[in-house]
C-alpha cells in the first residue's frame, strides 16, 4: 500500500510529529531549503496538510497540492486556512475545538487578574529589591467587575462561567443574541465596551471581525477599562491599541496574541498596566497532547473512510 504523504507546515509539537511519522510519510516543510521546490517534488504523494494558528493551507498551497484531501489544523482558529477554496475543491478541514476551551478560558481569567492586580509588575518589584524601600501601591479589585465578552461561543461561555465565580456581572456581544443565556446582550461592540469594565475578545477571526476592537471601542472602554485578547491579533487595531495605552485613554491590556507574531510592539514593554504573553492560550502539556491526538485521530478516520472526529468542512 502506497504510503500517505502528510505535509506539516511548521514545528508545533514533537509528540504530534512522532505520531504522524509512525503512521504516514511526514514531510516537514520548515526543513526545506527551497519551499516551493520541496512542495513540487512531493506534491504527488501529499494527501494531507497539518497546520496551526500560525500557518495554514492558503489558496496558493492548496493549488500546489492536487492530491490534497484533508487539512487537519492543530488549533481551533482556522483563519489561516482558505476555507472557501477547501469547500470548492471538496477538501475536508478538521480543527481542535473543546479540548482546548478550558485552558484558553483559564488564561483569560489569569490575564484579567494579572493586569488588575499587577502580578507581573509586582513580581518584578520584589525581584528588583524595591520592596525593601516600601510597599507596592494599591491595585484594582477583580471580584464584582463587569466583564464584557465579544463572542459567546465555547470559549466565551467558559470565560463567563469562571468570571461568575468571582461575582462578575456578565454581558456580551455576538452576531446573534443567545436566547438561552441570562447574560445581558448588547447589539454592538461599542455599546458593550461602554457598559463593561473588562472587555475580552473571544470570537473567531473572519473578514467581519478584523479590527472589531478599534479606536472608538477602546475610547469607550476608557481610562479605567481593561482589554483582554485571547482571540487573534487582528481582532484589535494594534497601532491604535498602543497609542490608547501610551496616552492613558485605555486603562490596561492583557494580550496573548498580536497582529504580527512573534513581533510585539516595543512601546508596550515599559508599561506596567500591560501583560504580554507569547500566544500560550493552549500551551499546556495536557492540552497540546489532547490536540495532537485529535489531529491524528481525524487523519486516521479520514484515511480509513470513517466519520471525522471534529470536522469544520
Amino acid at each position, binding site marked *: 500500500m502506497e504510503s500517505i504523504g502528510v505535509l506539516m507546515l511548521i514545528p508545533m509539537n514533537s509528540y504530534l510529529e512522532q505520531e504522524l511519522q509512525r503512521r504516514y510519510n511526514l514531510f516537514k516543510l520548515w526543513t526545506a531549503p527551497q519551499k516551493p521546490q520541496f512542495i513540487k517534488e512531493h506534491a504527488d504523494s501529499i494527501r494531507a496538510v497539518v497546520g496551526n494558528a500560525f500557518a495554514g493551507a492558503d489558496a496558493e498551497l492548496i493549488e500546489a497540492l492536487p492530491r490534497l484531501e484533508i487539512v487537519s489544523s492543530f488549533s481551533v482558529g482556522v483563519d489561516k486556512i482558505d476555507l472557501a477554496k477547501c469547500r470548492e475543491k471538496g477538501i475536508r478541514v478538521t480543527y481542535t475545538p473543546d479540548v482546548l476551551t478550558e485552558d484558553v478560558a483559564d488564561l483569560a481569567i489569569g490575564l484579567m487578574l494579572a493586569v488588575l492586580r499587577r502580578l507581573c509588575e509586582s513580581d518584578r518589584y520584589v525581584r528588583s529589591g524595591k520592596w525593601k524601600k516600601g510597599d507596592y501601591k494599591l491595585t484594582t479589585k477583580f471580584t464584582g467587575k463587569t466583564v464584557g465578552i465579544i463572542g459567546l461561543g465555547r470559549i466565551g461561555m467558559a470565560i463567563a462561567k469562571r468570571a461568575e465565580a468571582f461575582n462578575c456581572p456578565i454581558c456580551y456581544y455576538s452576531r446573534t443574541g443567545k436566547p438561552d443565556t441570562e447574560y445581558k446582550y448588547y447589539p454592538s461592540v461599542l455599546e458593550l465596551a461602554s457598559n463593561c469594565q473588562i472587555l475580552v475578545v473571544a470570537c473567531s477571526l473572519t473578514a467581519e471581525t478584523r479590527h472589531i476592537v478599534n479606536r472608538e471601542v477602546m475610547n469607550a472602554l476608557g481610562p479605567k477599562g481593561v482589554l483582554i485578547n485571547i482571540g487573534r491579533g487582528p481582532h484589535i487595531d494594534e497601532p491604535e491599541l498602543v497609542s490608547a495605552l501610551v496616552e492613558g485613554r485605555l486603562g490596561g491590556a492583557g494580550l496573548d496574541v498580536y497582529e504580527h507574531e512573534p513581533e510585539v510592539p516595543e512601546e508596550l514593554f515599559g508599561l506596567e498596566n500591560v501583560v504580554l504573553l507569547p500566544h*500560550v492560550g493552549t500551551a*499546556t502539556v495536557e492540552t497540546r497532547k489532547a490536540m495532537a491526538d485529535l489531529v491524528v485521530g481525524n487523519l486516521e478516520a479520514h484515511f480509513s473512510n470513517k466519520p471525522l472526529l471534529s470536522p469544520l468542512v
Partner: protein
Amino acid sequence: MATDQATTPPAPEIQSHDLSQVILLHPPPVFNYFKDLFSKKFHLLKAWESPLPLHEFLTNHAHSTQAMLCSGTGPPISADVMRLLPSLRLVVTTSAGLNHIDLTECRNRGISIANAGEVFSEDVADLAVGLLIDVFRKVSASDRYVRHGLWATKGDYPLGSKLGGKRIGIVGLGSIGFQVAKRLEAFGCNISYNSRKRKDFVSYPFYTNVRELAANSDVLIICCGLTEQTRHMINREVLLALGKEGVIVNIGRGAIIHEKELVQCLVQGEIGGAGLDVFENEPDVPKELFELDNVVLAPHMAVFTTESFKDLCDLMIGNLEAFFSKKPLLSLVMNE
C-alpha cells in the same frame, strides 16, 4: 504637634477635645490613603510622631484612652504595652490576622478585639487564584520572556500545566479559604481541605492532617492564620508529600511555611513551584527564589486594592464609632 511635646511639659489634650481618643503605635498602611477620614472623627494619639520613648508617651498621654487602632505591621500589641494603657477596652486591628496581639492578656482584662472581618476575603482569594494560574501557566515568567525580546529570537516558551482536574488542598477553610474554593471549582478543580474543625456547610473531603492533605493534592493553598499550632506547619515532610509536580500558594503568613525548607525543596526540584505573597521576614525574600522561573513573588499585597482599603477604612471607623456610642461592634472577634 510633636515639637511642642519635646520642650513643654505634657499639656492636657488641647485639640479636638470633643472627639474620642484613639491611640496608635504605628501608622497602619490604610493611613497612607485615608488618614483624614480618621482624624476628622477621632482624636488620634500618634505614638510614632512623639520623640518620647513609647512607655513615657503612653503613660503621659494615653492614661484614659479606651481604644487602640493597630495593624499587622508595627510593634506587637504585647501585655507590656497594654499594661501602660489602664483604660484600654478595645483594640481594633486593620488585619484579619491576630497573631500580633496578646490574646490572653485581652481575655484576662476583658478587652474587646475587632478585626477586618471578611472585608478583604474576596481580594485575598482573588490573589490566591491569580498566583496559582500564574505558576501553572507561567504568566509572569513568559511576560518577562516577551519583554526581553526572546519570543522572536528563542521561539516558544516551555509548556505550562492545565488547571482543570487538579486536586486543590486548602489549608484553613475560613472565609478566605471558602472564597478560594468557590472560585477554583469553576475552573474544574477538585477541592479538599484541612481545618481545625470539619465544616458542615461544605461537602469537600476533609483531611485531619496537613501531610495527608498534601499527599492527596496537586496544590496546597495556605489560607489559615498564624498561631502556635500553625507555625512551620508546612515543612519538608509536607512538601515532599506534595511532590515534584506539586505547587504551593501562600496568602496566609510567611511563618506558616518553614521557609528554609521550602527554598531547599524548590531549588532541589522536590516540588514543582510556588506562588508567595508572604514571607517569614518581610520585606526580605530568600535570594535563591530570584533564580527560579517556577516561583511567583508578591510583596504582601493581597489586601492592597483601592476597594479593600476603602471598605476597611469604613469598617474600622464603623467599629470605633459603635464602641464610643456603646453599640455592638461591627466585626467583634470571639476570643475564647
